[in-house]
């Protein structure tokens, strides 16, 4: 569903993403891990068609992001790092505007807005002015916006930032429920989140891919012989530590 090949992004002399290649299959939920400044947000912005790549290509559902941006954007729901919220508008007006921008069929807009509002947990604040919402609600409004129109692919940049523990669990359940029908790629700093919601983990460091595998595959390769259950999260921290503190020597044996 998502094919990234030899993706490189340079900002003048800073290399944000360096020769990144990976493929995400339909219906997979992939967690995007990496330290701050590893190039996660940049990669996601390129996936969503906001930034151009310096070189390399990104294909979503068979369409090149740069060549046919509108075909890709129609299929991608994107939650940016900073949730895009119009401070002056009410939550409903924000969602209405996004639905119109996405060109959703007029007859179903009302019910579609109610659907995503319920999913993202903003149904109770529909009449409130978005600028007065707490960080958590803004984040959820951003999530609702990404879910509008039920897109095939969801690109979520740190979807649980600013949420309280219960809300984090709700979002986690939501992402899990999307698996299968939707292809999801989400970035996060919170390791338990990855273990609980993602089938595959993609680890980047300094713009380079250091490993990309299923959670089980990572355990087998990096902690050979260790028996771990998915409820025990410490193992992931250990693997993550190994991967991102080692010098970025190029893609792992994925």
């Amino acid at each position, binding site marked *: 569903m998502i094919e990234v090949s030899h993706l490189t992004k340079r900002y003048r002399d800073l290399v944000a993403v360096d020769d990144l290649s990976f493929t995400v299959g339909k219906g997979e939920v992939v967690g995007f891990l990496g330290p701050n400044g590893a190039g996660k947000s940049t990669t996601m*912005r390129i996936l969503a068609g906001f930034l151009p790549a310096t070189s390399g290509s990104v294909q979503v559902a068979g369409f090149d992001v740069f060549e046919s941006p509108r075909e890709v954007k129609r299929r991608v729901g994107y939650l940016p790092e*900073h949730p895009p919220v119009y401070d*002056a508008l009410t939550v409903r007006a924000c969602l209405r505007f996004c639905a119109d*921008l996405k060109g959703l069929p007029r007859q179903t807009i009302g019910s579609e807005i109610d659907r995503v509002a319920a999913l993202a947990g903003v149904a109770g604040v529909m009449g409130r002015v978005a600028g007065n919402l707490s960080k958590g609600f803004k984040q959820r409004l951003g999530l609702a916006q990404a879910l509008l129109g039920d897109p095939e692919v969801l690109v979520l940049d740190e979807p649980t930032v600013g949420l309280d523990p219960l809300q984090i669990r709700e979002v986690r359940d939501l992402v899990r429920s999307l698996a299968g029908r939707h292809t999801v790629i989400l970035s996060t700093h919170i390791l338990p989140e990855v273990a609980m919601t993602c089938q595959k983990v993609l680890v980047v460091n300094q713009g380079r891919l250091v490993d990309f595998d299923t959670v089980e595959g990572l355990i087998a390769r990096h902690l050979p012989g260790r028996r771990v259950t998915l409820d025990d999260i410490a193992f992931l921290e250990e693997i993550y530590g190994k991967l991102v503190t080692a010098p970025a020597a190029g893609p792992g044996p994925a």
Partner: protein
Amino acid sequence: MRAALAVARKELLVYFTTPLAWVLLMVVAFFSAQFFNGALDAYRFVALRAVELQSPQVLDRLDLTELVVGRLLGSVAVFLVIAAPFLSMRLWAEEKRARTFELLMTAPVRPLQLVLGKYLAALAMVAACLAVVALFPLLLSFFARGAAGGSAVEWRTVATGLLGLFLLGAMAMAVGMFVSALTESVVVAALVSLLLLLGLWVITILTIGVDGPLRDLAAALSAAEHLGGFLAGRIELKDVVYYLSFVVLGLYLTERAIEGRRWA
């Protein structure tokens, strides 16, 4: 087209839910009232003098539309040039600052549709300001009677004057929108477009005392010179072309600036 209308709707919603539009309309109403009163006083003074001096020729030539409405619209024009940057400044700069620009750019919409939507909203704001201004000639027409008993206000001259102001506003908004697309700061957007527009407004003062082609060039570039015809009741092609070329250029450059973000 639907996306463009959605953007226009959103922009107007923001203009009218924030104080910006209301403050501006209030300021327009206040200054128009001052200009109107001033022009009316001047007219009364001239008329009384003409009666005192018993010179019917002067009285005959006194034209309420020209002296009162014409002056009002002429003064409002300067005001429009100064006010437009404060309306256009937020069109793109605000989206970039609030990070909603990313939302617009990742929506399955052509940049041109976004540009047209925003511009449509800007034109609606110009129209709203002019609607407030148009109340004053209307007020005048209730009280002033012409020599033949009809209305003393020549509505055709007023209409061409308002059309001229609308074109001037359209030009100012197009220039301002382009500047706004280049920066993340609304203050910079407002100041730079104010500088550009005021520059175009007063460009003829650079050539005071100069004769020949330079002076003609300055007059041809001046936004003020091209308004004269409209205020006098004439619609001239050169004036319409002047304003519309700024509109087209502004829209084109804005579209390029927005589309350019996809490339770098």
